[in-house]
């Protein structure tokens, strides 16, 4: 499995669960969960890899109302390691129960802030030593950041109201670079052609990909052509 990509999964309700399962496999996590809030549509989304028993218990007990991994993490701009939350009463309440369902209290939540007050939270957990956990997080955190935005943007644009709002606006630099990519030029070539650094090309490409909700440059090129932002190469 090369990349974890939502657009390659069948358009079914279960595809977000499938996506989270793939995230766990690729990044050696025990469980992953996504929660999204969209004030524009007044909707809340939740997808988890947890067992049905835990899901039922979580809802019955109303744990979502106090779960600090949801309520606290969204106030940070950086991923929140749950060790930052563990002293709180609510954390202990939620994770005392979670323990009985085999869910570890070692985890991380990545907050995503969208342009219209929408918020996404991608969490991942794993039972292992503290050292191992720190090492793992350090090596996967950049990927998890990208995937958090990937699933969040996907979920948000699955609602028609947000799809209208989330219209991708590329800068002329981003369009120009995508146009050269469509013409088959490498990042190095594009840097030379435009007399800008390789890193500048990279940073604009990354931004263009994310605005087009694509994980690879060829995908981004395809979508940009599809909506008429650039010409076929």
């Amino acid at each position, binding site marked *: 499995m090369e990349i974890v990509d939502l657009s390659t999964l069948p358009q079914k309700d279960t595809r977000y669960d499938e996506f989270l399962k793939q995230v766990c496999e690729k990044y050696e996590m025990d469980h992953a969960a996504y929660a999204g809030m969209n004030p524009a549509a007044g909707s809340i989304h939740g997808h988890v890899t947890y067992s049905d028993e835990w899901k039922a218990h979580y809802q019955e007990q109303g744990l979502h109302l106090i779960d600090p991994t949801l309520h606290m993490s969204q106030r940070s701009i950086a*991923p929140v390691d749950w060790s930052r939350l563990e002293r709180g009463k609510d954390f202990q309440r939620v994770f005392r129960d979670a323990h009985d369902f085999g869910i570890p209290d070692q985890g991380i939540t990545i907050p995503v802030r969208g342009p219209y007050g929408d918020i996404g939270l991608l969490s991942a957990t794993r039972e292992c030593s503290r050292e191992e956990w720190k090492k793992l997080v350090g090596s996967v955190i950049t990927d998890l950041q990208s995937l958090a935005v*990937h699933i969040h943007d996907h979920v948000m644009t699955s609602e028609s109201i947000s799809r209208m709002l989330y219209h991708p606006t590329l800068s002329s630099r981003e369009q120009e670079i995508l146009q050269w990519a469509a013409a088959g030029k490498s990042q190095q070539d594009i840097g030379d052609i435009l007399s800008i650094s390789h890193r*500048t090309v990279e940073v604009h490409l990354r931004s263009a990909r994310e605005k087009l909700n694509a994980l690879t440059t060829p995908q981004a090129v395809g979508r940009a052509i599809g909506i008429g932002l650039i010409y076929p190469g």
Partner: protein
Amino acid sequence: MILVVDGLNRHLFSDVLDDMFQLRARVFGGRLGWDVNIEDGKEIDEFDHLDPAYVIGLDDGGNVVAAVRALQTTGPHMLSDVFSAILCGEAPLRSATMWESTRFCVDTQRLSRGKDKNSVSYATCELMVGSLEYARSAGIQDIITVIDPVMDRVLKRSNCAPYDYVGKTVPMGKVAALAALLDCTEERIAGVREFAGIEGDVFIDEDKALEMFEAKKAATLSPANRDHKPLTDLEKYFVEQMHAAKTESERQAVLDLIETLSEKFTPEQKTALLGTPRAFAHEA
């Protein structure tokens, strides 16, 4: 040392944030003459209400000497809004692994020239190291930062030259503003550390910072002679007793005794004395 304050811990550090907002008022409202909103001597804008992260430089006395604010580029941030002139109307960059940094400032009044630990140069570099390392640990790869040309020169001189710029330099107040790109690579961080001679961990954790501020408060409150009159023997006795108190019940006994003998003091003396145990309670 560097303290990170965000939406999770800002209730613990409201004094630090107030100091920072005052510093920002002096720098952006005063020195740079930007059109910023200042109330009560503090510069606060709408982005401060969006739970940004603040990377704050403190001196050994716990005073705020430098600060910068970070926001995600996936959501509302300054370049997508108030600084759009810099981008000439173009759409801003949006990336999961790029943060925007704004309001980078250093207290040039409190700090000295030169390169020692209390210099503008050192505080600037330490703040850069702190913000780059904080971003890096969050999986962030690049920072887009809105700065003035002076800060741009400082970055270049400090082994931390931007690898590129976005948009153009626009007039803003007495100076100008521009958007620069910085990568959060180990090479860049090592470069700044080497330039300023910064070694080891620059961060102070939440608990240590709280301890430091508590001790600072105790130092300004104690002992019971805020009017600088010599302590009476009775006052001295209570201060010593409080020092000697090892358990909570001993501490309470001293408080009770102060209460019992309260007619021996002026109201000011009593308040100060009762404040003294609180200040020392931390040590007890």
